[in-house]
């Protein structure tokens, strides 16, 4: 699994980095830098995807 960002939809709200710090950090302007999902973080990833106010995140099956 991996997290994909719709870069046009993303507004830099930053909730993803708060909910999933193991895979998402924010750049100097507050936009997500997404790394690989560590094993066992799938549930947290789903929560981050669901919490995005801009609906800019999705989970992709392939890594």
């Amino acid at each position: 699994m991996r997290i994909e960002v719709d870069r046009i939809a993303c507004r830099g709200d930053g909730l993803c980095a708060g909910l999933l710090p193991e895979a998402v950090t924010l750049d100097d302007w507050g936009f997500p830098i997404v790394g690989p999902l560590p094993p066992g973080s799938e549930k947290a990833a789903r929560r981050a995807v669901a919490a995005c106010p801009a609906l800019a995140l999705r989970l992709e099956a392939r890594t």
Partner: protein
Amino acid sequence: MTTATLTTRLLGGPPLGPRPAGVDVEAAVAAAGLVGRGGGGFPTARKLAAVRGRRRAPVLVANAAEGEPLSTKDATLLARAPHQVLEGIVLAASAVGAREAYLCLPAGLAPPPAVQDAVRRHDLAGVTVRLRAVPRRYVASEESALVQLLSGGPALPTSRPPRAAERGVRGAPTLVLNVETLAGVALAVHCGPQRYRAVGDPAEPGTLLVTVAGAVPAPGVVELPTGTPAGTALAAAGAVDVGAVLTGGYGGAWLSGEAARSAPLTHAGMRTAGGVLGPGILAVLPRHACGPAETAAVARYLAGQSAGQCGPCVFGLPDIAGALDAAVAGGPHAPAALAAVRRWTATLPGRGACRHPDGAARLVASALRVFAADLSAHVSGRPCAGFFGPRYLEVPR
């Protein structure tokens, strides 16, 4: 300025003659080993295969919009060999079952009479070919931007998925090919794959159009076999004083003059040398020019050309341009500015809907490498003499 050799077959080659009957276009293109000439270098046969056999008839987009401001090769090709491009359109359309094609040209210029005349006179075999003007914006010639424009929207990139091959112009599967690629399709079919690939690099065969720009006596487009050292293209433009070369255009990468001269004109060869083939652009800086200042001007231009849709590009590109300016100007904040440029160019790639931020970051990162000594002198308050001299890269306003 075109080298009149046996390899001249895109510009000023002999007429193609009658269309061969019963040729499997996709197989011929695959056997010829044709790779795209728009900048990405993707195998053309695989692009054909991606839209073939879908439920809806595909739409073909022939891209001559030339978003890279330094590139003039598509305009040159269309002026010199419009029938070869149209023949490629007809053959590619037949290969995928498209009945509709758009020839996308830069706005502001009337379509060359040769093109209009060719569209009227060429045997289009039932394919409707429409001319479309594309706004002169850097990202407007990107595939998804063309798809959105031709669907009635603005010429701005869109998020993927869906890919154009799945759902493109007005929802139809869409095949976007550069016009030089389409001319190659015509050659591969009319001359046969064996003759097509008898010239050039075995992995990326054929000839290639290269725009040579910047500080050269005879700027323009040359046609050369792929794999030829870039120095041959520079020499054809009369370049003598070559301090550095911008390869691949404004979204490309700098190489030192020596590295550029020996770099082969293929995607793989340029990449190995640290450069970019892109749509075949080589822009020359003389030795006394200020590479960092030239790069800062281009970075500023690229920041202004952002579609304004993706945060990392909207905020990142202007900040990179500003920090590079500060580093070039020197002073107490210059070291921190240079460090910021380094950090930002590393985090930008892959974080836009299109590759605009990737290209801008790559260009600036390459300047940090190639002009490292000059740049560190600037940062410590000792700008080079070239800083006070003229600029050699034309940056559109």
